[in-house]
């Protein structure tokens, strides 16, 4: 029973790892390109969680200096993740634009159909 109590604080890290491996599974196993991009953004957001969780102090407040608060959660991961979120949406936009062009050029966005077409042409 005490082992369960020891493992409980690790629960949110395990959920983060579950989100990470499901994002990885979507990227590798599914052939539809839009779904692959959704899986990639799932993977990215789980990495944000992985960065933010160690920064929290139980009983602290957000890192904005104000009267009456002494303990603040760490501000450095927030800065890194802010940049990462915006870069993530930039790559998502570029990926979606590429998908639209692939669809116009080949008529499909499924990876399997593209490979078959490549094998037929080669």
């Amino acid at each position, binding site marked *: 029973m005490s082992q369960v109590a020891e493992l409980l604080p690790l629960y949110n890290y395990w959920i983060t790892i579950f989100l990470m491996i499901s994002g990885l599974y979507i990227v590798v196993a599914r052939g539809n390109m839009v779904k692959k991009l959704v899986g990639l953004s799932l993977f990215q957001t789980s990495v944000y969680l992985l960065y933010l969780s160690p920064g929290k102090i139980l009983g602290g407040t*957000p890192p*904005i200096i104000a009267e009456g608060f002494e303990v603040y959660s760490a501000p450095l991961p927030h800065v890194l993740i802010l940049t990462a979120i915006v870069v993530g949406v930039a790559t998502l936009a570029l990926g979606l*634009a590429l998908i*639209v062009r692939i669809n116009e050029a080949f008529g499909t966005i499924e990876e399997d159909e593209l490979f078959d077409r490549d094998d037929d042409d080669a």
Partner: protein
Amino acid sequence: MRLDVIVRVTTKFFLPFMLLFALYVQLHGDFGPGGGFQAGVITAATVILYAIIFGLAPTMRLVPPIVVESMVPLGVLIFLGVGVAGFVTGDNYLNYSHLAHDQVHGQELGVMLVEAGVLVTVCGTMIAIFYTFADRGRS
């Protein structure tokens, strides 16, 4: 009566408050959560909502694509300009300490200009990408 009357009337109510909220988030980024990125995305969301409800052509008359496309590099230029002002007046690139009469005011002025540059670029890029996606399907 068209089916989207309710949506159009309610959205007309919302849009000025969304712009006001974006301005609030930008200018109070120093004292609460906020800053350039959030405000830029909220402003872009206002224009995108207008385009979804009222159509793409009225939106392009209101915010022409040329204006939006020139906003994209303008913000980066503002940011670079503040950096150059840093080494013209002081000692390092992007050092804001000597932009005003003492260090604290110089830092605050530098941060405000930099956040404004980020707002312009983020807003312009999001609206430009939306215009491009929406325009592609209209052939």
